[in-house]
């Protein structure tokens, strides 16, 4: 970008600013709506500047409880969703890194069979196995529990494959050096494999956290009590077909709150990424 003419700089910036407006304006408008009273929202046009109801709306939603979703507060919904998203992300990483470790570094009978079994499950999305899974959850009494929300989604063929591919790039000499240095399987895993996988884990965590956060179909099935709803489902429930029934100001607040944690994860982990990449070696 060095040595460009001023005109080209201006054009480039204009395009970028336009792009930002297209992406950011709806979010900004949602934020504006979340700071107005219900009456202002229902009487178009909606002002372009934030109103004076920020504090009222947000405290009401976070702590007050919203009628249409069974009087549960948005704070509770955020807690549920966070637990589910964290559980799914951490669980998926934990399970897939261990299974990839076994598949790559150990020689056991039927190793490739297990690998292909895992691989094949890639072709079976949640929707395909949703009824049998639901039956199992009912039988195990896991309806309306965090375990019921998390466990059926916790295995990940994609993440296992990703770790497998990464582990296969680790030179055999490194494994042997560790063996000669007296590192058993656990030490090798914790002292060498985990530190080397840091950036992969961070990247997967971001992806899987957002995957967990935006889950819709499964939480819809497995939660009956309003107390256990996730924020995405609650958001859907809050919107009624009749405009008058819908507390749009609270819907807007909930929408704003729903996107904050994924954004936080991306922003924070992005810094971590960069550090990981700078520190990383090979």
């Amino acid at each position, binding site marked *: 970008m060095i040595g460009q003419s001023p005109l080209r700089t201006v054009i480039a910036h204009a395009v970028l600013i336009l792009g930002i407006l297209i992406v950011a304006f709806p979010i900004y408008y949602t934020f504006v709506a979340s700071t107005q009273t219900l009456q202002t929202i229902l009487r178009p046009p909606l002002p372009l500047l934030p109103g004076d109801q920020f504090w009222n709306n947000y405290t009401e939603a976070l702590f007050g409880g919203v009628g249409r979703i069974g009087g549960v507060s948005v704070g509770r919904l955020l807690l549920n969703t966070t637990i589910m998203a964290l559980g799914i992300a951490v669980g998926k990483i934990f399970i897939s890194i261990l299974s990839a470790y076994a598949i790559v570094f150990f020689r056991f009978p039927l190793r490739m069979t297990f690998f292909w079994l895992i691989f094949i499950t890639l072709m079976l999305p949640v929707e395909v196995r949703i009824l049998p899974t639901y039956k199992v959850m009912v039988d195990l009494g896991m309806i309306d529990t965090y375990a019921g929300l998390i466990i059926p989604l916790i295995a990940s063929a994609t993440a296992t494959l990703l770790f497998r591919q990464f582990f296969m790039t680790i030179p055999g*000499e490194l494994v042997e*050096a560790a063996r*000669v*240095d007296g590192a058993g399987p656990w030490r090798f895993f914790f002292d*060498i494999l985990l530190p080397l996988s840091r950036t992969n884990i961070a990247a997967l965590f971001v992806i899987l956290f957002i995957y967990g956060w935006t889950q819709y179909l499964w939480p819809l099935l497995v939660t009956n009590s309003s107390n256990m709803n996730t924020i995405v489902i609650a958001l859907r429930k809050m919107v009624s077909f009749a405009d008058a029934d819908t507390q749009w100001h609270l819907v807007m607040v909930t929408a704003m709150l729903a996107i904050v944690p994924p954004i936080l994860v991306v922003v924070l982990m992005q810094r971590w990424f960069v550090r990981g990449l700078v520190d990383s070696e090979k």
Partner: protein
Amino acid sequence: MATVDLKDVKKVYPSGFEAVKGVSIAVPDRQLCVLVGPSGCGKSTLLRMIAGLETISSGTVAIDGKIVNSIGPTERDIAMVFQNYALYPHMKVYDNMAYGLRNRGTPKDEIDSRVRATAKILELSALLDRRPRELSGGQRQRVAMGRAIVRNPRVFLFDEPLSNLDAKLRGQMRVEIKNLQRSLGVTSVYVTHDQLEAMTLADILVVMNGGLVEQMGAPLDIYERPASTFVASFIGAPPMNLLALTESASGAVLADGTAIAFAPREARAATLGFRPEDADVTFNAEAPPGALVLPALVEAVEPVGAESFLHCAAGGNRIVVRVAGRATATVGNQLRVVAKAEKLHWFDQAGKRVG
């Protein structure tokens, strides 16, 4: 302070491929044994079996008289230097060296003093806080050596440790490894495909080919009396000149029908060899009695500085002759190559040395 004894060691892979076909080697205490051979000769497999990284199909490996076949690499008390160094990329130099000691539960202050002492020997003291990627190839090599030395193991194992360095650095490190090994007095097994490394480092040189030991002994003994045409052509650069002989009514003749002026010392000999430096070139006809005299046509001249190599066509073969300093011969010259009788090597049909 240990001996390494291999008795009839074999390695058969599940595919049925026999990488090592029965090798017996005894490495005395404090000696450096070099395994040399072309790629695929089984030398690395053999080393990895000594290390415990490869299972032993049959035969025994003993360290200090104790058979270690079923013991893991950790308990064998060996240290290994790998071709690609295999440093832990996420650890600092200090931690790379300390890792093995930590795993053995050595007290912290002892680890510290040992790491620092080793770093001093290898001139790594200023680099202890660096990570491997911030080091040059030679420095990484030193860290790999340090990781081995710091443990004070019974046996050092080197797997082509210098093959990733440039020629100059390789020369330096070669001397350094030799000095270190001698001053530390640790029994070592060293694998290389570079015959120069093999010759200069070895107390005991083992030349391997096709999973078997071709010859074993002191490097210069092997150089002077190669046991087979394989060893003759593998040890020495440029390699020994080998000329195929055929019997005829008048005696032995070379491939192009040139009759050898004297009877071979051994009737069974099928190949005649002499080293490039054991031959002289002359434009005259006279030669010492019993010497091999070959008419030769110079095809190329390689001046190296202190010496020159003449590549010639002679007796239907291509031979190389070393002459000191500048070569007077030029391409296209007809001359005679004269090798004294006592400098000739004779090999039988199977390539084994005779006489």
